[in-house]
């Protein structure tokens, strides 16, 4: 269950005009950038439903790009993000469509033609990353989070959590899904305190682990 914070109500400090269409867009971009975590040369933003309809008027296009290059929700440079040198180097485009199976404020980031990261802006600046390539996830940025993709086989969860236990870090929530038995599976681990450097590397070194990301909590 989500714990309600005082700062959910009296925050965020943000660039207007809409927490879902701007702060949420920036945070989705930030999260996608952290998950991808290497140089972005090309990106296609696919905006759905309300994001597609009213996104331009709200500057959602600017917000998504700003987040992707690492600007925070209260960075005034969001307004002129397309003039920034690092953005001029990126080959980017926006697509707008409707899909009632998707959340009203949904977006796909297609990065360097190889990685697709999907997410929703769920209101009040809160977000959820719902998919990384073909894997379902649920990353909100409220906790330090470790994401692991691995081969579905006995013992994988305990091997990964053992490495977290070694650092005396408490696991707040743990969600696992898999495509099919014995196929690739994903683990999304929310922690009560950030995993120190080295934990992600140790998990990466485990046999049959394909992908690991250690993502910080987002500032409110």
């Amino acid at each position, binding site marked *: 269950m989500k714990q309600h914070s005082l700062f959910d109500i*009296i925050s965020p*400090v943000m660039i207007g005009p809409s927490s879902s269409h701007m702060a949420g867009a920036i945070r989705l971009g930030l999260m996608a950038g952290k998950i991808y975590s290497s140089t972005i040369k090309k990106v296609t933003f696919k905006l759905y439903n309300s994001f597609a309809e009213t996104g331009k*008027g709200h500057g959602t296009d600017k917000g998504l790009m700003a987040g992707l290059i690492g600007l925070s929700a209260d960075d005034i440079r969001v307004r002129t993000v397309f003039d920034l040198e690092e953005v001029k180097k990126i080959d980017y485009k926006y697509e707008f469509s409707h899909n009632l199976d998707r959340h009203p404020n949904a977006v796909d980031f297609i990065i360097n033609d190889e990685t697709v990261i999907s997410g929703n802006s769920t209101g009040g600046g809160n977000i959820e990353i719902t998919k990384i390539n073909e894997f379902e996830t649920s990353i909100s940025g409220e906790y330090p989070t470790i994401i692991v993709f691995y081969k579905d086989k006995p013992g994988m969860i305990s091997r990964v959590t053992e490495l977290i236990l070694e650092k005396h870090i408490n696991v707040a929530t743990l969600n696992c899904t898999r495509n099919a038995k014995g196929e690739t599976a994903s683990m999304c681990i929310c922690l009560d305190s950030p995993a120190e450097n080295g934990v992600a590397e140790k998990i990466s070194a485990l046999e049959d682990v394909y992908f690991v990301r250690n993502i910080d909590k987002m500032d409110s």
Partner: protein
Amino acid sequence: MIKSLNTFETLLSYSEENNLPIYKIMEEVESRAFDITVEEIRKKVKHNVDEMKNSIKNGLACREKSQSGLSGGDCAKLREKFKTTPALFGSLYEKISTYSLAVIEENARMGKIVACPTAGSCGIVSSVLVALSEELNLTEEDEINMLITAGAIGHIVSIKLAPAGAVGGCQAECGLASAMAAAACTCARKGTTKQIIHSATLALKNILGLTCDPVLGLVEVPCVKRNVFLATYSITASELAMAGIESKIAPDDVVDALVQTGQLMSPLLKETSQGGLAFTKSADNFKETIKF
């Protein structure tokens, strides 16, 4: 020891039994839930108060239009009017109305604001807090207490209803903001916990049914002017409560009514821009002329 703050009833009884003001209880709950010291909480709140002041300053200094052209410039108009013809309600009213307009216009121009509880209602708590602080010569500590008190009200309501127009209509955004502002105002005037809760309740009770029907889906029409209306309105709720006037419907019941009203509200009136003001001839005309 209080673990969570879910109802106004819990807040009132805990406050009266332990002789603690609302802000201290909220600090205690937040501190325990998120493993953060009270000092850190107050530092973060102060940052938000400072950003509220900045947004007022920036908004007052700018008369530019928003990207759509639907808003911007009215704050300057109102200030000029007050210079020649003062407000009937006096200087506090002048400040609250111009400050709220300054902040919400700044929001529409993609300026930096504090969403409280949302961006679309950002002018309400900001303007009431800063205007009162100036008029009553309040301290920094008072300002922090006011914002935490406002946050406590929003916190309790938001457990039952997400502060989002798409979920509960504008009653859940500007409506909730006015209840929070009323509480901040009553806190600033040293009202009792009961008076603070009832000021928020009276505000909520009188905005039940407020829909979210923004023209073109933008946070401008009717949001910009609505911030001014609901900021000034919150003072009325505080005045009544300071006189000891209470809501006949219990505070938690009013929250339940708010939730129920939000559920009964047609989806066409909940941020989809398919009904109400967004579905008028005038709105259609804007659709023709405004292109992004």
